[in-house]
């Protein structure tokens, strides 16, 4: 009699956990697929316009950006006029800024990492330290929802204990057909919402379907918003690691 209860319990455990394991696997797979799609191929070139919206004003910064893998990026500001010519270089986990008006190359110190990039809601840290949405989180399917008329997987991601991530957990909505991140809610360690990011205006650019308009809304500052619009994007451009150099920061056009 005793034995049979145990058997029932064990089988119940299997019965309950079995499908959960299967779902977890598929959640990771979905995120991985979306992440690969989002990050693009080995290298890329893009032209973007970032609009910073505040309750009483807004301004737009335009820039061009070259990337190679996750570790190298070079960004050139092209508008407005008074900021034109500034460049930002990311090499692994260092970030540099070149300012032509003072002829100075500055390494952004850790103390500036939490400040907004070019006055936007994106922090320097966001740009520099893209933690991996695949490797740094435990994934869990949280259902399906429709975002912008598209059926999405809703995936809850809890950060792994040893991961160097400032978030506590995230909820992401991934388009079922194209595996695009359409929406993400980022929460801090106390579980309160910090920001919402959403992608829209899905277009095919350089042969790939991507959201071309990304909105970032900080939760605790009403009226604040940053919108990034991708105007042009190219994948797998011929660019080498030596392109991402301090010398090139001063000459890139």
């Amino acid at each position, binding site marked *: 009699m005793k034995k049979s209860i145990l058997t029932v319990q064990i089988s119940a455990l299997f019965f309950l956990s079995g499908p959960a394991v299967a779902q977890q696997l598929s959640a990771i797979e979905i995120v991985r697929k979306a992440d690969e799609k989002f990050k693009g191929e080995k290298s890329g070139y893009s032209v973007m316009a970032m609009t910073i919206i505040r309750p009483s004003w807004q301004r737009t910064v335009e820039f061009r950006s070259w990337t190679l893998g996750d570790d190298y990026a070079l960004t050139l500001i092209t508008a407005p006029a008074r900021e034109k010519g500034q460049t930002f270089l990311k090499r692994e986990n260092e970030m540099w800024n070149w300012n032509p008006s*003072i002829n100075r190359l500055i390494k952004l110190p850790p103390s500036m990492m939490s400040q907004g990039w070019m006055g*936007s809601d994106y922090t320097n840290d966001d740009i520099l330290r893209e933690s991996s949405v695949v490797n740094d989180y435990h994934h869990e399917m949280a259902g399906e929802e429709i975002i912008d008329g598209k059926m999405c997987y809703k995936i809850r991601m809890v950060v792994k204990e040893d991961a160097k991530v400032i978030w506590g957990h995230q909820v992401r909505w991934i388009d079922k057909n194209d595996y695009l991140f359409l929406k993400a809610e980022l929460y801090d360690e106390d579980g309160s919402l910090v920001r919402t990011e959403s992608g829209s205006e899905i277009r095919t650019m350089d042969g790939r379907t991507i959201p071309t308009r990304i909105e970032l809304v900080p939760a605790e500052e009403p009226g604040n918003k940053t919108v990034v619009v991708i105007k042009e994007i190219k994948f797998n451009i011929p660019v080498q690691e030596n392109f991402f150099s301090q010398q090139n920061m001063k000459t890139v056009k």
Partner: protein
Amino acid sequence: MRDNFKIAWRNLWRNRRRTIITSASVFFAVFFAVIMRSYQLGTYDQVITNLIESFSGYIQVQHIEYQDNPLIDNSFEYDEVLSEKISDIDRVTSVTPHLESFALASSGPQTRGVAIVAIDPEKERNFTDPESKLVRYRINKEITEKYDRRDDIPESVKEKLKKNLDRSYSSRARLELEMGLTREESRLYLDDIMRSTAITNGYLSEHDDGVLVSDRLAGYLKAGIGDTVILIGQGYHGSSAAGIFPVRGIIKIPSPDIDNRLIIMTIPAAQKFFGSEGRITSLAINLTGKSKRILKNAKDQINSIIEDGNTVAKTWSELNPVLYQQIQGDNQSGAAMLGMLYFIIFFGIFGTVLMMIAERKREFGVMIAIGMQKKKLKGIITIEMALLGAIGVISGMIASAPVILYFYYFPVVLAGDLGKMMEDYGWDAVMPTAWFGPYFYWQAVIVAIMVSVATLYPRRKIGKLKEIEALRS
């Protein structure tokens, strides 16, 4: 009534000594109360004048949010017309625009966060006057060594020079004072020292693109006149601000905290740097008076001129509530001290009255015994007391007036460290008395009230007087 008055007057002079003692107690009460209050009020006045006139101004025009959130985003559109209109308001003595923000200053490998204060070099002369704070003389190692080799300079002067190594001064008087030269040494060597320590220093011209750097900051950045400093910061609406600025002059600010982190530039240069064309963060306004009513009047008038709904005028007490409350608190404790003084004075007066009644008990008994009405006697005593009080109050006021006048025009000069500190800030290190105001009459009124309270006692005593007992005493 006339008779009563005549009797009272004669009574007073019948015993001169007693009259003089009683009125002297009233006299000293008025004299000390008036002078003490005058000093208190005069000192507050001096503090307010010093602090407000040289820092914030009596009234400031700001963006509505600026006080809570002093960012360059909370600046406002400024044009000369507004400034001129405000200047035309009654009692306004100066209108000074400021654009203030923060940035990183860098020169070579040294970088430090600094406060940037952008000014109109001409208008600023009437306000904080940075020109008077320019470093004119500096003692460096080269100079002390040069003097060390000279034979015509006495050891004491050489020592004093060495003691003041690396210090800088903005005037001849400061150098003389801080070096602690004796009169004889000054006469013989001061000109010589002036000549060898003098450095050239420049102020800003109206559309200057250069900066003035505070003395300690310049030392840290190792930037001298003619060098350049790089400023990096965040500009208007989150834009990036960066620029190279030539150093035109070095200024010495007495507060080490400010001296470590101040850069002054012209408003147009700062507007270009921060990308905030046409905007400033504050307009500081000084007035000829500082009473609440004058401030409120001027504030209301300024507010009616300003067209922008997001820009308002605020008085110094609104801008600096902590300072205002400190002064208020200090004023209260001053008033409490005065209250205690009155308490002591009252018992002084009361004591002499008590003595007088005891002395004249027999006299009163005789008067009543021969048929004088108690009511009449009370009247006479009241008149006597009123006369005594009046003599004391009037003579007290007359005697204190020249003292107040004298110390108003020739105030007590503070010596020692406190005096030096105040002079460093460009203030007069003095403790003046306050000019005659309501406080002057009020002390007299209060003392007069005390005298009339003290009169109640003899009146009551006469009322209860038993002739037989009084005659026997």
